């Protein structure tokens, strides 16, 4: 059983600029939630606040609280490093570490976080994670080859394997398929449906068919105009959002009359 995420009235800033305003939402454990919306509406920003990656950017900060089950990850004394170990992230462009082999890439999170593990434990983690990311059969004979030698889709699954190797509760995916071809996209989508049995997954996507295919819940973000903060317009079960949205702007966006 993984953990749920609750955001309560979150405002997100880049320096003096308010990028996102008043986001409150609840993501159920062991579900896939998709964030959709036009470019620049703040959905990636919201995603990055959930594992405190937002504050890596100089001057960026967050106002409000984000709960992991019932623990505020922005509470005092919370170490962002521990938050990120619990809430993993997969990025838009596959980014395996270029100096490391496939196996080292999978182990990067575990090793670099300072844990020591025996050789057989390490091999178990590598195999388990690569199997979890549906990559084991393709790379099991070349685990010591550089990860950057794989195809784009394989690299992205390697990044997913790397993210689940540290055994997180929640997996955040920031447009994980936008750099991939349809076959690799399908592989990742199948993987997401498998992973949801063990993880809570939040995915940002520009592809509405993808949101429809993989997600249980969908949140639509929009902004009133250029320079205005983005907002969560509405959130609900994916079938609901796509068939009977409550808001006109959601309807417009989904039916392609906007953005």
């Amino acid at each position, binding site marked *: 059983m993984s953990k749920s995420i609750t955001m309560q009235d979150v405002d997100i800033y880049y320096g003096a600029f308010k990028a996102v305003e008043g986001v409150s939402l609840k993501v159920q454990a062991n579900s896939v939630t998709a964030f959709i919306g036009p470019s620049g509406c703040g959905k990636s920003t919201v995603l990055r606040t959930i*594992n405190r*990656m937002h504050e*890596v950017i*100089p001057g960026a900060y967050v106002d409000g609280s984000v709960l992991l089950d019932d623990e505020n990850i922005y509470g005092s004394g919370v170490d962002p*490093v*521990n*938050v*990120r*170990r*619990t809430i*993993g*992230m997969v*990025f838009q*462009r596959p*980014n395996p*570490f*270029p*100096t490391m082999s496939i196996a080292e890439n999978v182990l*990067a*999170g575990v*090793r*670099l*976080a*300072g844990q020591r593990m025996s050789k057989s434990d390490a091999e178990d983690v590598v195999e388990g994670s690569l199997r979890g990311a549906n990559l084991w059969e393709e790379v099991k004979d070349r685990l010591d080859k*550089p*990860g*950057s*030698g794989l195809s784009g889709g394989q690299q992205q699954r390697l*990044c997913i394997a*790397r*993210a689940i190797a*540290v055994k997180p509760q929640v997996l955040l995916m920031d447009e994980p398929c936008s750099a991939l071809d349809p076959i690799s996209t399908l592989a990742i989508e199948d993987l997401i449906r498998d992973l949801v049995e063990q993880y809570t997954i939040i995915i940002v996507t520009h592809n509405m068919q993808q949101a429809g295919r993989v997600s249980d819940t969908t949140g639509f973000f929009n902004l009133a105009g250029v320079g205005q903060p983005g907002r969560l317009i509405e959130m609900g079960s994916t079938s609901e959002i796509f068939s009977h949205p409550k808001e006109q702007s959601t309807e417009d966006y989904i039916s392609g009359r906007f953005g």
Partner: protein
Amino acid sequence: MTTTVDTSTRPPSSLIGGTLPTWAPALIGALAVASAVGLNMTTGLAGWFGTTIVGALIFVVIQSIWSFAVEGKRHAVDRLATTVVYSTFVIAVVPLISVLFTVLAKGLKVMSWGFLVNSMRNVSPRNPGGGAGHAIVGTLEQVALAAAFAIPVGILAAIFLVEYGRGRLARAISFFVDVMTGVPSIVAGLFIFTAFVLGLGMERSGFAAALALAILMLPVIIRTTEEMLRIVPNELREASYALGVPKWRTVLKVVLPTSLAGIVTGAMLAVARVAGETAPLLLTTFLTQSYNNNPFAGPQAALPTFIWDQITSGTTASVDRAWAGALVLITLIMIFYIVAKLLANRFAPKG
């Protein structure tokens, strides 16, 4: 639609244009050489330099006219630009090869195993024999010590500037690194001389020389390392943070390994740059004619000061030794470069 473009005035569309035969440059070249040499013999043009210039001009003129007539303006300009680019390359390489050739020719005269291991102890400047062994030991020790100070400090400073530095302190350090880049080497020597030899009463030593060399290496290492760290994609840092890796381990295990090849090259370039410094050595360690293997006590020889000393003696035997010393110095620096390149390849990200 009424907005269609009138196509009746289109230029004739032919994709095939005139071309010079492939042997044209060779023919023009032969013509140019022949006519320049002919002119030289008949009119007594000023030496080989004048002949080369005239030959080059003849080549450019014939080629341009022929190409313009057959291929048109664009190709003629292209050929002219190509000729200019190749010529400037040759002009840049000629002095380099000339220096190498001269040093090899003159340096090999007295080069021997004995030259590499003997010192100048009890060898008069007029007599042949002796060697640069003491200077080789001195240079290796001083450069190694300087590298031991400057490389760690330089890399750490660059890491601070790129990964941690914000605000005033970082800007100030960055500014002073720029200033240090422009410090003349003799000033670095003077600084160590005043601060350590006069100020703290240390005796002149290879160690003091190493300190002066380290001052000269620092800005080079900081700047090259900074550049290398900056080109590491931010995505890799974020990927590491997102795995719950602390910042210091991200820098140590992800950012540094990714840029290590460039950092090694930069450090080796800095080493090669200071290995040939003369002025700071004269102030900080001066020179000696004997072996002094201890860099922490007493004057120590080094290759640049050895060359300077032998040249200023001015006898045939000592000038020969100076050339041999120059050959040893160039070879040492070349070995540094080759080692740097091998290391860089070894560490470069694969894939």
